[in-house]
């Protein structure tokens, strides 16, 4: 049985400045409208309430910026990436589209190969601690076999070891640089890492951030 061809326009955009306050549903709506304005030949779902087939990776929490975010627009037919860029970029001006790539692929979710995300954070505690102390805390975390964090769901609290899915952790100036797992099995939240750092430096409070930026989404092997 031959697999159906599917075409997706992968749109890379920014969610920076005030747009970081846009919730995910509002963002999805803004893209849906932009696609209709741009008259992109988008594929629709069947049924009474047809929806444009636009999908996103795990959403950014409100307040977090994204420098190289992605969105996949499923197309009715093959199209030139350049044409889609030219039509869509002016409709999403505030989102500063960097590039569009058209992918042809088989019937599988587009996001299964998404493995990791890069972040840069300016932690709450950045001003209060010496850089050397921070470096030491980073080294301590990286040297550990296990970093246990508690995750609360409605029903229960679960203890998870996040260490295996911290693929990179660095301190530079007042900034923490991280690459963390994003799949269902490997998900690590930046806040969890910052809290672990705060604890390693002897703090009681959770580690928050003054600025958090998702710098990129990584497919395939984690970098």
């Amino acid at each position, binding site marked *: 049985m031959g697999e159906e061809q599917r075409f997706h326009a992968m749109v890379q955009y920014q969610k920076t400045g*005030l*747009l970081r*306050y*846009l*919730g995910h*549903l*509002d963002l999805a*709506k*803004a893209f*849906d*409208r*932009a*696609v*209709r*304005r*741009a*008259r992109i030949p988008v594929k*629709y779902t069947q049924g*009474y*309430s*047809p929806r*444009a087939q636009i999908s996103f990776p795990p959403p950014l929490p*409100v*307040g977090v910026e994204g420098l190289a975010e992605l969105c996949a627009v499923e197309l009715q037919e093959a199209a030139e990436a350049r044409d889609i860029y030219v039509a869509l970029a002016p*409709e999403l001006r*505030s989102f500063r589209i960097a590039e569009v790539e058209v992918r042809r692929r088989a019937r599988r979710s587009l996001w299964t190969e998404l493995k990791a995300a890069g972040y840069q954070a300016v932690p709450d505690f950045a001003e209060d601690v010496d850089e050397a102390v921070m470096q030491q805390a980073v080294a301590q975390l990286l040297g550990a076999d296990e970093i246990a964090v508690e995750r609360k769901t409605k029903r229960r609290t679960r203890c998870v070891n996040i260490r295996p899915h911290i693929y990179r952790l660095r301190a530079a100036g007042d900034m923490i640089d991280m690459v963390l797992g994003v799949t269902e099995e490997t998900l690590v939240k930046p806040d969890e890492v910052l809290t672990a750092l705060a604890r390693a430096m002897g703090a009681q409070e959770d580690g928050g951030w003054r600025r958090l930026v998702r710098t990129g989404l990584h497919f395939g092997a984690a970098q």
Partner: protein
Amino acid sequence: MNIDNLLDDVVGPARYIGCEHNMVEKDPQSVALRFALCYPDVYEVGTSHVGSQILYHILNSRADTYCERVYHPWADAVQLLKERNIRLASLETGTPLTDFHVVGITLQHELNYTNVLSLLDLGGVALWSCERTADEPIVIGGGPCAVNPEPLAPFFDALVIGDGEEVVQEIMDLLGRHSPPFPDMHSRERFLRELSGVEGVYVPFLWPVKKVGRFLVPQPPSADRPSVRRRVVEDLDAAPFPTRPIVPYRESVHDRAQVEISRGCTRGCRFCQAGIIYRHTRERSVETLRRQANEIIDATGYDQISLSSLSCTDYTEIETLLEVLHQDLSERRVSIGMPSIRADAFGVELARRVQRVKKSGLTFAPEAGSQALRDRINKNVTEQDLREAVEAAFRAGWQTIKLYFMIGLPGETDDDVLGIGETVQQMLELGRQCLGKRSGRMQFNVSVALLVPKPHTPFQWAGQDSLPQFEYKRRMLLQQMGRRKQVKLNCHDAPAAIVEAFLARGDRRAADVVETAYHCGAVLDAWTEHFDFERWRNAAAEHGIDIEKAASEEIPLDAVLPWDHIDVGVTKEYLLRELERSQKGVTTDDCRLGECQDCGMTRLVGRCFTGGDADG
């Protein structure tokens, strides 16, 4: 807004970020006049308002003006602005209200009145017109509530009565000639005096009030101008309409494109203020609407377009309009919505045709539970119409039907109230017959509103039901329908309706009550979680007013009314005639079909929709 550092601490920060698609960007240095267009409720409500979009478009089409938007912040942001001493500012450039030449505030709803004060206060503008300094903005109001401007009159430098499209241009032209900011009070006052000469503009400080009977009644500044006449745009086709409206980020109350197909309504329901104050009925042509609809979808990307009108099904060429819009838009997966359809088979047939893309619930408004009472309020819908409509809706595949009723109507008896439940019961049985086995999914959402007697309507003299009366009737309805599985009964809140009635028919003393209520914390009153009846009761009592009595008291027919100086076009004689007919249970024909009822509008406009003839 200049509250960047607040946004991490508020609910729904996307309300305050601006930068939406189609927001107008100008260099503030490049314009002579700066206009802050304010909506006295939160972003989600304000962004849905077509009138504001129209004014925004008109003002920004002027090279000399930059119009920016200001919405009322939600309660958490209000508190933070106060705590951190930050002034409320525009979304476009973060400019505080005090730096604008004009602050324009639309008045859509009485329960927004305290928000008007709150907006000014948060923006650092003096609340009372008489306390403003020369360099403060000129504060101008408008919108439907301005037809009785008195409860807010002292807070406004001017109020505009009627359609804003033309008069806003005249105001800005005049202001431009005075090149603000005003150097001294003398020049500010000279401007306001000239402004009062613009037709449709009411400048309250020129109208001192005098106690006449029970009311404080504004006295004309000169004998040759005994009233302020409402502005009416005669040709809707020629009137500007924004085809690049702002597309809000945060979901708004009406999150869709809107075209205004007509203004005004010819039906003459006696409780309805809109039916009077938007007379005469004017329609945009099919060609204009087709062009506008396509342009709006091109410019916004909305997946739904709503035909805005007081009565969509009455639009002369409604079938043609729906056909061409469907032709143009269905391919782009844009559905067409009609907010109001007539409760008859024709209405349902139209709804069936437009809802080919999406199927939401269907709404009918019989308004009263008995034919006798429907006749009294001149709601010309018969039980037969309603049966046909509901039957057609079920046969066409709808399962959810909304029914709007009102209680507290003049002349209403217990039987009339019980008639609401009986009508719903009949509809349920009809549904069971039509749907058979599928009738399990059938659902009636019954919404019961309380009559608020409004100025410039035949019921303007009526006393509103008292709180105990409302409670009694509500309990009757609950007993009748409260436990039915397939009926969801939603009865509006009586205390809020009482405050609305008090404010709608208030004189200038109501302004003191509004101010006191505001200072006691009344704000965002249209949101039930913020509304506090005690606060209003106490605020009124502080000024010697019993708010419940004021709302429920009948006004003598010969009383001079605080809004008599506002000439909306329809005369008091006509309203009295209609009241009399109501008391006799006599209906009045739709002016499209019957004879001219001589309502007074022909004094304002040359042509009117009468006798089934656009030129009648």
